[in-house]
């Protein structure tokens, strides 16, 4: 019945269902956004159990306040925003919040005239090769964890959850200029980590 049609559910119907306290609406929120939220929270707080708590808190919060939902942003942005706040709170409380330095990751790679000081290293990987691609994918997944929190967040929102700049602004509550600068710095920081990792002997990647 309702379950069969959940794929076709619009956001309005979902919000309506939540307001009326429908079980299917609650399940649909979990199915639709739960895994993404959990992945996001886990990469931010670093621990699966803590991440589950953060996601639970976020969903409880959204159910508590569904009456006030005005539809100016999506449910997804709203949920991610709550997880963002809760995760940052959590990290601050446990003194684990790491912010990126206020400097471009590649500021020192160029001469005063604007040319490369050193040639950017070739990764020596063949992107067409499945083995290389899989190895790099695993490496990237691990390296994301090493990024400062604000870089980690924006990389996840854009690359993994495919949010556009506007949605990222809604989640992180920053201006679009700020979001673009941060996204680019985050990608460059990840690139730098990847570059360093790929320069290590091949054995260490195995």
């Amino acid at each position, binding site marked *: 019945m309702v379950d069969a049609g959940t794929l076709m559910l619009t956001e309005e119907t979902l919000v309506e269902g939540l*307001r*009326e*306290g*429908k*079980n299917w609406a*609650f*399940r649909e929120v*979990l199915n639709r956004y*739960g*895994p*993404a939220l*959990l*992945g996001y929270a*886990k990469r931010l707080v670093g621990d699966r159990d803590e991440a*589950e708590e953060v996601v*639970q808190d976020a*969903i*409880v919060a959204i*159910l*508590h*306040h*569904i*009456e*006030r939902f005005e539809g100016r942003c999506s449910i997804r942005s709203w949920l991610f925003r709550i997880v963002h706040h809760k995760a940052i709170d959590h990290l601050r409380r446990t003194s684990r919040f790491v912010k990126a330095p206020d400097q*471009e990751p*590649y500021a020192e*790679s*160029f001469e005063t*005239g*604007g*040319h*490369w000081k050193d*040639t*950017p290293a*070739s*990764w020596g990987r063949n*992107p067409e090769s499945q083995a290389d*691609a899989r190895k*790099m*994918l695993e490496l*990237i*997944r691990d390296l*994301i964890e090493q990024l400062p929190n604000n870089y980690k967040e924006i*990389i996840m929102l854009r*690359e*993994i*959850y*495919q949010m556009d*700049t506007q949605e990222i602004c809604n989640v992180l509550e920053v201006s679009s200029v700020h979001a*673009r600068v941060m*996204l*680019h710095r985050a*990608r*460059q920081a*990840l*690139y730098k980590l*990847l570059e360093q990792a790929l320069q290590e002997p091949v054995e260490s990647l195995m």
Partner: protein
Amino acid sequence: MDFMRCDAMVRRLSEIVDGEASCGERFGFYFHMSICWKCRRYMRQFKQMRTLTGQVQVEELPDDFAEVMSRVLQSEAEGATQHSESLLRSEGMLIGQPVWIKK
């Protein structure tokens, strides 16, 4: 944007690959790429990294997550009923008794 400077190209790379740069900027950018193999290499690897990052798997929910959530909501509602039912009512939590807080 100074199209002869590599640092200017690298700084705008995200806007280019995300399709957020203007026509003029794109033209200047690709002109620079046609004459600068260092930036070309950086761009190629940057794009490769971006594509791969998009393939990082999202987490799966534990099987009992919905049940755990229901319990969390239930205990929230029960605890709150004793303390501040009126507050929750004002927040819409208890209006019409949402089914997810029933067993």
